[in-house]
């Protein structure tokens, strides 16, 4: 390491945030100047008109932000499952999306067979535990110490297997989530805010509350329990954890099971908003830009990233989407994430990877 005194004083521009801010300010200034020059052209439509709409109809803005917030919570939940597994086992678990679908399908399928709703929830948890044990036994243990990409591909294998398995057991047609049996509220609250009516779906409010409770529970579990401490140790260093007598295999089962619980809750919430079907799998891919944004190893990153992506996506679709034909939701999230990446390659809260030669 070189002598600190020998290094030149860090320039103000070396700070990524200041640089970002300057660039953003420059772009906005240029856009405003451009918008002054032509008041009805493209630049006006892109940079001024949407903001005017926002100011003129704040109730619509509030509604859009709320919807973004809700889908953001769901993205955050899926991303949370990814992060848990990535931290503990270094596996980029592509199967998280399908685990959500699988958990929800198991729950609904069991209920269809006549199992009472809450018993079905416990049975589904049991199924997720069996799944975690099986994955650890059959997939992770033989593949220990292989390159990351091999483990990544193995989770693809799990995805395919679960799709085939779920479809042949429960059938491929979309199912209705058992919301009323689980005492989840229905309907909407219409609130008068900002001179207009903003409607809040009760299920969305419930989803936000349950998600916050779960995240708090996870935080307590990680921070104050013996297993939680072991999990954090494994996340820090596999070798060091092994050397103090923590069983990696046991930890992996626990982590995959935790991800399974998160998947079940996500599945219930998501299933309540739409049908339970394998179409969710593609939607679950939306959780990936959340990961880039938040960093692969940070739970707060997953949450904040999920909210940013959710809100950004809905705002973009609502105010800027019509300019280029709509439907931009499918890729906007990735571009938001890429924009962040240019300035912070490790994500908002991700570990800075220091590379030595």
């Amino acid at each position, binding site marked *: 390491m070189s002598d600190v005194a020998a290094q030149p004083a860090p320039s103000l521009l070396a700070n990524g945030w200041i640089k970002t801010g300057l660039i953003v300010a420059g772009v906005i200034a240029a856009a405003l100047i451009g918008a002054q020059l032509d008041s009805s052209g493209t630049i006006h439509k892109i940079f001024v008109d949407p903001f005017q709409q926002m100011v003129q109809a704040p109730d619509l803005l509030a509604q859009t932000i709320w919807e973004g917030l809700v889908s953001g919570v769901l993205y955050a939940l899926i991303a949370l499952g990814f992060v848990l597994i990535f931290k503990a086992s270094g596996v*980029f678990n592509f199967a998280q999306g399908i685990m959500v679908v699988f958990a929800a399908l198991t729950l609904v399928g069991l209920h269809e067979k006549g199992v009472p709703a809450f018993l079905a929830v416990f049975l589904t948890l049991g199924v997720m535990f069996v799944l975690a044990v099986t994955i650890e036994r*059959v*997939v992770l243990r*033989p*593949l220990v110490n*292989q*390159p*990351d*990409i*091999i483990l*990544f*591909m*193995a989770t*693809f*294998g*799990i*995805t*395919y*297997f*679960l*799709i*085939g*398995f779920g*479809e*042949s057991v429960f059938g*491929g047609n979309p199912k209705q989530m058992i919301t009323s049996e689980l005492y989840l509220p229905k309907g909407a609250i219409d609130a008068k805010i900002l001179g207009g009516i903003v409607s809040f779906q009760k299920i969305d409010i419930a989803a936000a509350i349950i998600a916050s409770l779960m995240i708090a529970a996870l935080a307590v579990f990680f921070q104050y329990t013996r297993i939680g401490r072991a999990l954090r140790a494994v996340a820090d260093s596999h070798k060091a954890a092994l050397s103090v007598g923590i069983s990696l295999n046991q930890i992996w089962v626990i982590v995959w099971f935790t991800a399974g619980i998160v998947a079940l809750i996500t599945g219930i919430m998501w299933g309540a908003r739409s049908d339970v079907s394998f179409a969710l799998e*593609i939607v679950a*891919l939306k959780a*990936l*830009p959340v*990961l*880039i944004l938040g960093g*692969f190893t940070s739970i707060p990153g997953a949450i904040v990233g999920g909210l940013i992506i959710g809100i950004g996506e809905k705002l973009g679709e609502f105010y800027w989407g019509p300019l*280029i*034909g*709509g*439907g*931009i939701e*499918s*890729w906007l999230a*990735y*571009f938001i*994430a*890429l924009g962040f*990446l*240019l300035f912070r*390659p490790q*994500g908002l809260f991700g570990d800075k990877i220091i*590379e030595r*030669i």
Partner: protein
Amino acid sequence: MFYREAGQFKSTYAADMAVFPIRQDRIGIAVILLIAFVAIPMLGNDFFISSVMIPFLVFSLAAIGLNILTGYTGLISLGTAAFMGVGAYSCYKLTTYFPGVNVIVLVLVSGLFSAAIGVLFGLPSLRIKGFYLAVATLAAQFFLQWAFVRVPWLFNYNASGAIEVPQRLFFGLPITGASASPETRYFVCLGLVVVLTWFASNLVHGKIGRSWMAVRDMDIAAELMGIKLLNAKLLAFAVSSFYAGVAGAMMIFFWYGTAEAADVFNIRLSFNILFMVIIGGLGSLIGSFFGAAFIASLPTIMKFGLPALGVPLTGAAAEHVTFMLVGGLIIFFLIVEPHGLARLWQIAKQKLRTWPFPY
């Protein structure tokens, strides 16, 4: 006994550097080419050629493209299907504007468009790598797929939103469109694949390929050795997308005939090609062929082979079982041989070398 290099002396560096240094390998490749060019068109029926061999060739080429990027340069991409789509659409637009130009030339030129788009979406690779990059390439996948549906100029404002391949002649013989025979289309695909594989083989064995592998193994060390990371990475993206683009154009022009991008060039295709590369073997051209054969022909075998064996599986159930089996086989192969089918091939060759006296 049969496969031994004893007595084959190399007297020049060029001979030592040859792609096939052993005489038996050269005979082997000649036999394979003979089978591909003579035996299959003569013996195979139309169904076999058009639903097994042509898909196999198309996927092999796409897998070679992705292997150049992922296997040789170490950059994971999940946007291969989108780059294939760029190739297909630009070939369609080109043949609309230049109906007189030979369509084989246009297929190759459309690869250049795909390469340009690939370089554009490869730019993030200069800042990030690994899974972050994989997710970043998903941006290409979703954006381009969106563009294929939402930009009507790309499919000539067709009401159906699909591209329909017009009939094009090659020395008076129809090679695209409904009236082209499977054999003709097969020969065109085979010719393109052979030439492009030969080109790729020379590329990865030469200076460029070595610089890619240096970047893959350790990019900082490669930079210190004077390899420009910017050029090497972007070139890898360009070449890879070129191959993907040509494969995509071939897919539409010589295999499907008509296509809607949202159905064909979806993310599942990207994943399938990544499977081919990994199951086949990262950083191995022959592995790309093995992987393509494995992944592309598995569903067909399951669909038509199982009923023939007496396993009564039809429709949806067969599809589910296929999914489960593919998933299981992927995990099985990764556990048994994480280096792919190409590694098994190498082990077999090594065993053959000492056979029948291994000690």
